[in-house]
C-alpha cells in the first residue's frame, strides 16, 4: 500500500471517535446546552464497552452497554444544568474530572490493575462498525436536524427558547433528549477507542479527543457536514503526526497543535465567522 493510502485510512480511523463525539456535541449544543463533557463521555463509553465485552464476550453487548452508560452520564449533566440550572461549563468540567477517576478506579478494583481492563481477543473487537456508523450518522444528523419536527424543535430551543416555549414546545424535554443523544453518540466514540482501535481500556485513553471534537464542532460551525470535514482534517493531522514520529525533521508537537490553533483562529473570526446557537449556555427559566 502506498503511503497516501496508509495515511488516508489512518486519518479516517483517527477521525472516527472525533466525529462521533462531535456529532454528539452538535445535538446538545444546537439545543442550547454546552457540552464540554465529551471527554468524560468518551472515557465512560470506552471503559463500559471494554468491561462489558470482556464479561459477555460479545462486542455488540459491549457497544449497547456503552450507549447506556453514555446516556446515564449525560443525564447527570442534564439534571445538573437543565434541572438545577448549574453553569453548563462547570458541570461539564466536573463530569470530565469525575470520569477521569471513575473508570480508572473501577478497572483497578475489578481487575486488580493500575487502571486498565484486560486485553480482549481479536474476535471480540469491533474495528469497522463504529467507523461506518460515524459516517452514516452525518447525513442522518443533517436529516434529523433539518427535516424532522424533532430537529426543528431542537434548533428552536437552541436559538430562541422563549419563542419555542410560547409555541408549545417543552424546552426542558427537548434539551434533555438532545443531551441524552449526545451522551449516546460520544459513548460510541469511546467504545471505538477501546474495542475498535485497541483491545482494552486504559487510563485516560481519550487523551484530549473530547476537546478536539469540541474544536471540530466549532470549526465546523455547528453543522454536520462541515463538522465531519473538520474531524477528517484533524484526524489527518493526527495520522500525519503518528506516521512522522521519529522519521521527519518536523517536530510532532507542531502538527499536534494544528486543531487548537485553527479553532482559535476561527473563533476570533479571522477566517469566516463561527456563530454559536444563540441560547447556547443559557439555562431556560420558564416565566409564569
Amino acid at each position: 500500500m502506498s503511503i497516501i493510502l496508509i495515511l488516508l485510512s489512518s486519518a479516517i480511523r483517527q477521525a472516527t471517535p472525533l466525529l462521533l463525539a462531535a456529532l454528539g456535541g452538535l445535538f446538545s449544543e444546537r439545543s442550547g446546552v454546552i457540552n464540554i463533557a465529551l471527554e468524560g463521555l468518551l472515557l465512560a463509553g470506552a471503559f463500559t464497552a471494554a468491561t462489558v465485552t470482556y464479561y459477555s464476550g460479545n462486542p455488540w453487548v459491549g457497544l449497547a452497554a456503552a450507549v447506556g452508560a453514555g446516556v446515564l452520564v449525560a443525564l447527570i449533566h442534564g439534571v445538573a444544568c437543565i434541572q438545577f440550572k448549574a453553569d453548563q461549563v462547570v458541570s461539564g468540567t466536573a463530569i470530565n474530572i469525575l470520569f477521569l477517576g471513575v473508570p480508572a478506579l473501577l478497572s483497578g478494583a475489578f481487575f486488580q490493575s493500575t487502571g486498565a481492563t484486560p486485553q480482549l481477543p481479536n474476535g471480540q473487537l469491533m474495528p469497522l462498525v463504529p467507523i461506518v456508523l460515524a459516517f452514516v450518522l452525518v447525513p442522518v444528523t443533517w436529516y434529523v436536524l433539518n427535516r424532522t419536527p424533532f430537529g426543528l424543535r431542537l434548533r428552536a430551543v437552541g436559538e430562541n427558547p422563549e419563542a419555542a416555549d410560547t409555541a408549545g414546545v417543552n424546552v426542558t424535554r427537548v434539551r434533555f433528549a438532545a443531551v441524552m443523544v449526545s451522551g449516546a453518540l460520544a459513548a460510541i466514540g469511546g467504545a471505538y477507542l477501546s474495542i475498535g482501535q485497541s483491545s482494552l481500556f486504559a487510563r485516560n485513553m481519550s487523551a484530549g479527543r473530547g476537546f478536539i471534537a469540541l474544536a471540530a464542532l466549532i470549526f465546523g460551525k455547528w453543522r454536520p457536514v462541515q463538522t465531519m470535514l473538520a474531524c477528517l482534517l484533524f484526524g489527518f493531522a493526527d495520522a500525519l503526526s503518528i506516521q512522522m514520529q521519529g522519521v521527519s525533521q518536523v517536530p510532532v508537537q507542531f502538527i499536534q497543535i494544528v486543531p487548537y490553533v485553527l479553532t482559535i483562529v476561527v473563533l476570533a473570526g479571522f477566517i469566516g465567522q463561527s456563530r454559536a446557537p444563540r441560547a447556547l449556555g443559557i439555562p431556560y427559566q420558564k416565566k409564569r
Partner: protein
Amino acid sequence: MNALRNLLFPLAAVAAAFAVGAVVVVAVGDSPLSTYTLLIGSALTWPDGIGYTLFYATPLIFTGLAVAVAFRCGLLNIGAEGQLYAASFVTAWVGITFAGLPAILLVPLCFLAALLAGGFWGAVPGVLKARFGAHEVITTIMMNFIAVAVASYFTQYHYKPQGDPILETVPIGDGAHIARLGKFIPGFPERIPLNLAFPLALIVCLLVYLFLWRTRWGYEIRATGANPAAAQYGGIATGRQVVLAMSISGALAGMVAVNEVLGYRYRYYDGFSAGYGFTGIAVALLGRNHPVGVILASLLFGALLRGGLFVDIFTEHVSKDLVMVLQGIIILFVAAEALFRGRMGRRIKGV
C-alpha cells in the same frame, strides 16, 4: 448570617460528595470508614502529612485565586493549566539561561518571568474575548494544549540533558533556588518540598483580597462581572476589564512555577501538574471565589492529594482515583447549588 451560609453550603457539598464517594468505595469492596480514615489521617501526621498537604495546597491556592479573579469578572478561566505550564517553562528557561546570576537578581527575574508568561497566556484569551467575542472557555481549553505542546517541543529539542530518558530540562542555576521551609522550622525536615512559595501564596491571597475589594480596578472588575451592561452604562470599559482580569488570572496561575520550578524540582518537568489548573476550578467554586475560601478549599484538596497516595497503597481495591471522583462530585454539587437551596430557597422568594 450570610457568612454562615457561605460556610455551611460548601460543607454540605463536601459532606454529600463524601457520602456518594462512600457508596463507590463500598461498591468496589472496601470499607469507607477505613478508607476515609486513611485518606484524611495520613494528611494530618507531623511532619510529613502536614508538610506534603501544605505543599500540594500551594499550587491550588494560586490556581484557585486565578479562577476566582476571572470568575469575579464573569469569566470562566479553564486555562489555568496552560498558564501554569507556559509560566513554568519560561521560568525554567530564565533560570537556565541566566544561571550565572546571583540569587538576589535571579530569583526576582525568575519570579517576574513566571508572572509575565502566565499573564501573557491569560491575556491572549482575554483580548480574543474583548476584541473578537471569542468565548474564553473554548480559547483557554485550546491554549492549554498549545502550552503543553510548545513547552514539550522546546524541552525535547533544545533543553533536555543528553541521554536523559525523562522529558525534562537541564537544571536551573543554583541562584534561582528558593529555600525550603525546613530551613526555618525546627524539627521540620528539608526533604519535604514545602518551600517559600507557600507563605508567598498566603500573602498573594491578602493582596488579591485588597485588590478586589479595596481598589478601583478591583471594583470595576467586580462590577463587570456582576452586570456587564450596567457596568458599561456606568462608564466602565468592560473590554479592558476582561483583558485585565484574564491577565491577572494568568499571572496568578503562573505563580505555580515558583513552587514547582524554583522551590521543588529546580527544572521544567513535562506533565508535572496533577491537574492543578482544573482543581483550581473546584477550589474557587468551593471557596466561593473569596481568597479565604480559596485557602480553606486548597487545604482540603491538598490533603486529599496527599491522602490519595496512601489510599492507593494501603487499601485492597480503592486507588487514588477516588480523589478525582470526590473532586468531580464536589464540583457537581457546588455547581447545582439549587439542589441544596431547593425548596427553602424557592419558599423564601415566594416563587
